[in-house]
């Protein structure tokens, strides 16, 4: 999520207010909500590596060659550091949060809709970026974001980013859409063949559209919606639902739907758009005029990590230029390390994914966790917290 410095400061204040307001979560007070990071200390220096590390990751982030012998950046890590990697693939941000709570894992590649929750609950520890040499080359747009830091303290190491694009079938959708209205107000033109990302966080996409389509709602940040704004977004999505053929949550589902023509217009990720086009489907994907939402993943260390030194080694490894290029290319996202672009096997890769184009990312509102204290700095209203988003999402799907 992009915030102006003023807004960032305001958000930080709000966060602090929340922190003082609700005390320690251990007391079990139920009424208060809000960002309440327990006072955890970042590691000051690295000790001896522990011989293994347990990771939670998105599919494709931790590849040891077992799925494809050519795709392997774990074996070298294991050889160099002596840290044996055990990984668990999570299917959703919610699952990541849940797994981190078990305390069995050392690090997680959390997206913005999970990271704040992990910080607030004290499951993620602050990160001492001085112990991660490659951090200095991370794009500035990814540092100290509202989704991965609190009050200037980083809680993780940025891994990569991507925008949620609008994809359409060039043969069946004409004229070519320029606005998100293609999936909202004008969705009925393709009734039954519209698709959308299957997650409560998708409500932010509707809010982003309303931000320009209905300026009287005064939406500033799609992740900070008061009740009225939220209701408008939900109403829009309920209307959209009548035209939706299916919601997608994994690559395969969306690729096959666009290929067969079951879906002709809807949100996508760059990598899915590329693969769908590779499969011979006539599709195009772009950032519409309203801008878009997006995701940025951050490697976070568990506060209960049993192998913290290996976890730090891993974070440095995964954003080292060569490995970051490899994982970004395999997963299909813009790398976090500015030097990674020199190592991609496809020389146009970074251009395709707009890795170095900071102005492109200015139009992208990265996923964040909605909380009661409005993230856009408003203090006169309460915003709708994520738990309510989840419930609303169930109702939208019906």
């Amino acid at each position: 999520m992009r915030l102006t410095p003023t807004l960032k400061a305001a958000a930080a204040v709000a966060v602090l207010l929340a922190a003082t307001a609700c005390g320690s979560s251990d007391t079990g007070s139920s009424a208060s909500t809000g960002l309440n990071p327990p006072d955890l200390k970042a590691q000051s220096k690295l000790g001896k590596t522990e011989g293994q590390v347990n990771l939670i990751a998105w599919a494709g982030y931790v590849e040891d060659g077992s799925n494809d012998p050519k795709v392997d950046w774990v074996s070298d890590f294991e050889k160099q550091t002596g840290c044996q990697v055990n990984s668990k693939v999570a299917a959703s941000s919610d699952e990541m949060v849940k797994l981190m709570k078990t305390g069995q894992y050392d690090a997680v590649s959390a997206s913005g809709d999970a990271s704040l929750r992990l910080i607030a609950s004290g499951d993620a520890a602050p990160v001492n970026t001085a112990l991660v040499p490659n951090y200095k080359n991370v794009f500035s747009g990814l540092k100290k974001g509202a989704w991965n830091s609190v009050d200037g303290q980083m809680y993780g190491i940025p891994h990569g980013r991507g925008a949620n694009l609008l994809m359409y079938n060039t043969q069946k959708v004409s004229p070519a859409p320029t606005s998100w209205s293609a999936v909202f107000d004008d969705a009925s033109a393709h009734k039954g063949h519209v698709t959308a990302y299957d997650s409560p966080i998708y409500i932010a996409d509707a809010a982003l559209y309303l931000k320009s389509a209905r300026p009287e709602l005064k939406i500033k940040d799609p992740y900070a919606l008061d009740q009225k704004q939220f209701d408008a977004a939900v109403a829009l999505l309920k209307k959209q639902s009548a035209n939706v053929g299916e919601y997608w949550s994994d690559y395969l589902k969306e690729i096959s739907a666009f290929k067969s023509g079951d879906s002709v217009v809807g949100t996508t990720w760059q990598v899915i758009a590329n693969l769908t086009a590779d499969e011979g489907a006539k599709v195009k994907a772009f950032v519409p005029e309203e801008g878009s939402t997006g995701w940025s993943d951050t490697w976070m260390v568990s506060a209960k990590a049993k192998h913290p030194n290996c976890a730090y080694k891993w974070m440095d490894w995964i954003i080292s230029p060569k490995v970051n290029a490899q994982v970004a290319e395999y997963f299909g996202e813009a790398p976090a390390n500015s030097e990674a672009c020199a190592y991609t096997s496809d020389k146009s890769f970074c251009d395709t994914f707009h890795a170095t184009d900071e102005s492109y990312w200015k139009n992208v509102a990265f996923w964040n966790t909605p909380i009661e204290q409005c993230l856009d700095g408003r203090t006169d209203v309460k915003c709708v917290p994520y738990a309510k988003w989840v419930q609303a999402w169930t109702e939208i799907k019906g």
Partner: protein
Amino acid sequence: MTSLPQTAGRSPVRRLAGTLHRRPRLRLSLLLTAPLLWLAVLYLGSLAVLFVSAFWTTNSFTSEVVKVWSADNFHQLLTTPVYRQVILRSVGVALAVTLLCAVIAFPVAFYTARIAKPERRPLLVVAILTPLWASYLVKVYAWRLILSQDGLADWALKPLGLSGPGYGLTAAVIALTYLWLPYMILPIHTALEQLPANLLDASADLGARAGRTFRSVVLPMVLPSVAAGSVFTFSLSLGDYITVQIVGGKTQLIGNVVYSNIELNLPMAAALGTVPVVVIVVYLLAMRRTGALSSL
């Protein structure tokens, strides 16, 4: 030499055997202790804890469970219209799948148990069981492919001027029927195979035509097995959430709603989870009256 059997007779093993034989209660408790510990303590215990947690709440931001007693979750469950809809839809899907399974399974089982040549029957049972070994997910994705636009279903139905159902509720019912069908065929097959031939002959001798024999002899003896199979088709369909995600379009069933709440709001997930549990327990109790549970 001669004393050997005697010493054997007094051996500890033999004495233990004797004790066990004389004391059936002891034997029974030895038989039941381990399994009951497993099922009652481990399984039912876990379930009980989960359902107690349905009365707790969560911190809406950190999703930590807050152990404060409240019936809010159940209140929400009963008053939110979308939950009611989803529950009714799920029960409807489970019933539809069960009915479809029974309709498809009966002729298949009748053929494999009574019409096919006896030496072929073992092979046919293998044929019924084989799909159980193919991965659940792969089978569902196969159905996704069949039902996709211009997929196998559209392709096959085109000459008839029809088209496939596409993704949605119907697709979910078809895919679930496919998945659980073997669980319905097998018990019916077993029941039909055990049907004494002389009973059928007697019915025929008494002048009953095939239709009458079917209604008055075959059906009553097979019904408990249909009920037994339905326990599987009904309950497995009611709890499923993966199939509907893959072929169900935007359909939500009770499993999906439980799943979407697990990480963020475990107490709510537990409250929602009580619904299929109650429905299934009621269903099982009803089926038990038909003798289904003993012919599973």
